[in-house]
């Protein structure tokens, strides 16, 4: 998607072409391949997705990478209109924010050393698991073995969690399939393998996050469904992940 990105960090940049209002959208460009910096350009699946959705809804986009914690302050204080940052939806968070219909089905996979005999999520019990704080990976593992369980180590980002695994501090990392697969692809010399287990883990979804009571939510829900329908979503998905999306599951959640 290198040709599509337009945004820069810190400073805003506007998508020309439509005549709608410009929305301030915040992200933390530190989570490849959803949103990350390529040089000083914010790129990733989320970036292309939000642009498509906003266009559909008739808005211009001013995308800004503000850092992880700041996202929530920006939204809660209504200084930003929307946040997109591979944000996992859960009930506790719904107490404070509104979320769009799910726009991404996150499949969690287990990253283990090649020699490991872990074959499923249930075998993780009793082992130390490293995750990134606030991700679907954490969510999934906590549902499996308990919230704030002592065997869960929460790291600021997946890099560190994986590093912990490499240095023997954890038996496995649980994270988005895209993240772990990308990692293994990028680092073939590390002797890691990906374990799939669709049974042990619940399905986790990403949503767009709005201030509580935002009127944009319904407009964006509609727009999301619209690009599910018109094939735009599948196009972007395929471009980033090389496969077709499971739109049925996403829609079933609504």
């Amino acid at each position, binding site marked *: 998607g290198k040709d599509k990105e337009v945004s820069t960090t810190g400073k805003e940049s506007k998508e020309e072409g439509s005549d709608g209002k410009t929305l301030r959208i915040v992200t933390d460009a530190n989570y490849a391949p959803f949103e*990350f910096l390529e040089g000083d350009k914010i790129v990733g699946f989320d970036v292309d997705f939000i642009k498509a959705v906003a266009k559909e809804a008739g808005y211009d986009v001013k995308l800004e990478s503000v850092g992880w914690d700041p996202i929530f302050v920006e939204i809660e204080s209504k200084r930003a209109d929307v946040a997109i940052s591979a944000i996992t939806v859960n009930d506790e968070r719904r107490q404070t924010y509104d979320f769009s219909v799910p726009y991404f089905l996150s499949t969690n996979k287990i990253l283990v050393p090649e020699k490991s005999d872990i074959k499923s999520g249930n075998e993780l019990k009793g082992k130390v698991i490293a995750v990134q704080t606030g991700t679907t990976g954490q969510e999934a593992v906590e549902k499996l073995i308990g919230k704030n369980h002592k065997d869960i180590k929460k790291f600021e980002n997946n*890099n560190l969690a994986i590093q912990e695994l490499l240095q023997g501090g954890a038996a496995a990392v649980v994270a988005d399939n895209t993240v772990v697969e990308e990692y293994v692809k*990028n680092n073939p010399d590390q002797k890691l393998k990906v374990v799939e287990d669709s049974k042990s883990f619940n399905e986790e979804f990403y949503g767009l996050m709005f201030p509580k009571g935002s009127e944009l939510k319904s407009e964006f829900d509609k727009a999301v469904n619209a690009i599910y329908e018109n094939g735009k979503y599948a196009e972007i998905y395929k471009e980033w992940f090389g496969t077709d999306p499971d739109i049925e599951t996403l829609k079933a959640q609504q």
Partner: protein
Amino acid sequence: MSFRWDIIFEYAPFLLKGTLLTIGLSVSSILIGTFLGLLIGLGKIIRNKVLAFPFYCYVTVFRGTPLLVQIFLIHFGVVPFFTGETNAVAAGVIALSLNAAAYIAEIFRAGIQSIDKGQTEGSRSLGMTHAQTMIHVVLPQAFKRMIPPLGNEFIVLLKDSSLLCVIAAPELMYWGKAMGSQYFKVWEPYLACAFIYLFLTLILSFVLNRLERRLKTE
């Protein structure tokens, strides 16, 4: 484990940009912090305990809480309150300055109190007022003694500026993190940043040493 020099080279222009912002942030913060620190330091040595109390509290709070929290408070609370929008660089300068001011206030207080009482008495006995004595006799001497601790504070501040990456101020560490998350690498960005910080602090130490020596022989 292979060390990916190529990604460091790829990110070199950004690291350079980040380094320049780091320097800019640090220099402006130390200047503002020194000015504020002087005022607060003078406030703390007021004889009247009631008047000195707010300054005392300022120093206690800013030295007693993590800088990270101060950065958040200023970024999301103080700056938007005045300008209506967030600005990471402005918030960074303000947070670092206010934090440094608390430490510098202590340096000033110690510097002023380290000047022999005889100097004040010599000056007062000539009929100079308290203010004149401070300005013409005590402060010029105190400043000289404060160069080494101020230099240390500057080094601390330079390294602390790396915390501004949490509010996405595009300084050195911010770009290091960006590099790490694009390529899923830990060592390359952190070691590269560490070397740049070390380089900056070494240059700074060198300059400060020269300055100190020059002031001594003066």
